[in-house]
């Protein structure tokens, strides 16, 4: 039993070091920080420009006013920005295709755990950037945005964490396709676009027809934008109440478990095809 705990502690320390290395790598490029902030703020501006024109002369659309939609996008865009696992797909796939994947096989590391730890380190850095950008945007738009529900912020953080884990697992499986295909760049772009639409990062899911909303509620994707925004808005402003939180968390946990098992199975099935450069 004690040995099992020792092993668990050793593995945790190992992957914490991987996450720290990824965080340090992200921190080393400071000019990226300023430009990253600009890109995040640009997405908010884009949503404001579009929806100001959509709302012209209208009070409410889909049960939301312009202030609620602006607040929705502030949350949705920044949660979507935190994810770094999508960009890791290209790195991982390139290593597979270039024969550099052997480094995971030669070391005592688990590729999936390494992938998740590295994503966590990079996403932690991105979360810090986006928190600053979100705070700056909130200050700039103070008086226009809907004030957030304090407890809703915690609920949103829990939901977004499970959603980001689900996305990282989907991205690991996308990267594993590189064992079978020459180029997974197109798959990654297509997956990103679909996830963006299904998560509600492109437009509030409240605007979709009822049947589409009910179908999407069964998937983990709304946890990447729509659900966190709804918890922060609160039920009084067209969002979600805390009463819905346990069911949402349970559903997401089940998805994470299912995707974890699927990722393990996908790696086991596809990694046999790996041939090192020169082998």
């Amino acid at each position, binding site marked *: 039993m004690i040995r099992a705990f020792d092993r668990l502690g050793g593995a945790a320390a190992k992957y914490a070091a991987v996450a720290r290395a990824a965080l340090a790598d992200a921190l080393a490029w400071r000019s990226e920080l300023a430009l990253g902030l600009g890109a995040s703020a640009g997405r908010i501006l884009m949503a404001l420009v579009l929806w100001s*024109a959509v709302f012209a002369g209208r009070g409410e659309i889909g049960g939301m006013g312009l202030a609620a939609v602006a607040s929705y996008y502030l949350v949705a865009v920044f949660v979507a920005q935190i994810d770094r696992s999508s960009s890791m797909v290209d790195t991982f796939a390139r290593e597979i295709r270039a024969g550099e994947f052997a480094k995971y096989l030669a070391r005592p590391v688990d590729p999936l755990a390494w992938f998740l730890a590295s994503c966590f380190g990079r996403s932690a850095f991105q979360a810090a950037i986006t928190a600053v950008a979100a705070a700056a945007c909130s200050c700039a738009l103070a008086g226009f945005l809907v004030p957030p529900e304090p407890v809703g912020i915690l609920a949103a953080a829990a939901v977004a964490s499970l959603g980001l884990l689900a996305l990282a697992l989907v991205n690991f499986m996308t990267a594993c396709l590189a064992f079978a295909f*020459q180029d997974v760049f197109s798959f990654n772009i297509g997956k990103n676009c679909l996830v963006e639409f299904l998560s509600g990062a492109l437009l509030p899911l409240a605007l979709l027809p009822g049947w589409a909303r009910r179908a999407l509620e069964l998937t983990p994707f709304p946890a990447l934008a729509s659900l966190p925004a709804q918890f922060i808005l609160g039920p009084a402003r067209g969002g979600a109440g805390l009463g819905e939180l346990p069911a949402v968390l349970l559903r997401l946990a089940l998805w994470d478990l299912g995707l974890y098992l699927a990722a393990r199975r996908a790696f086991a099935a596809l990694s046999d095809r790996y041939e090192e450069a020169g082998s």
Partner: protein
Amino acid sequence: MIAAMRDTVLRNLRSVAALAVARLARQASEAGSFWAGFIIDTMVFFIQAAVFWVIYLNVDDIGGWDKWCCVFFVGTFTFVDGLWMSLYFFGLVGIPEAIQTGRLDLYLTKPFDPLLHLAFERFNPGSLFLALPALCLVVVSTAAMGWRPSIASILAYAAALLLMLVLVFDLMVLARVPAFRFRRIEAVGAMENTLVEFAMRVPGSAYRGWLKLLFRVILPYGLIAAFPTEVFFGDGGGGGPLWASWAPALGVTAAFTALARAAWERGLARYEGAGG
């Protein structure tokens, strides 16, 4: 002087044509990647059309544009995107890598403009197929509006598309010349992606006041799909091309062409090569 300029232009055009033929031969041997790229690109733009469709389930117009006008707008962006992806996108995105690895040295030694060589050497005919669904969106939306375009409108639309291809080329070059100075410019790419999204996701009718100045002059990504759409529909009621909008678009494109070329030349001046 004129003869020398003509020789240079002809030599550059011949070289671009030779690069295109070489790429066609290579692409023909990679059918999987070809079709995957086509299917994914098409899906991206149909998702954007779906976004507008959902918005129009809830409202009748966006800044005076009805749903078919927005579908036409998405079709136009898809059309321009298909053309720029096939012609120079993949070549220009390789510029930072060419600078950092010293690959640019090879281009400087050849009797062909290095920027054009880099831009067109990765000609990707697969992306041209994007023009087919784009054309469908354009034709279907025009038919749904019950509007019969004049020959002048069609010609003006084609000319506007060509002008926007030049503008996008300039904007892509400007987003990559920082690689002469900085080692990592991924965030510039992220910023560029955000701005390109403006071109696709925000209809031209949504820009008002200072936003119009910002996204149609200073960062003219807002022109890319909106300008050809406005040219095609003229005053919005099928009254022919809106000639007054040409002067600003031509002026902005000319200014950005000069700026991109100057930035490129300045970058080359400080480039020290692989061993520099």
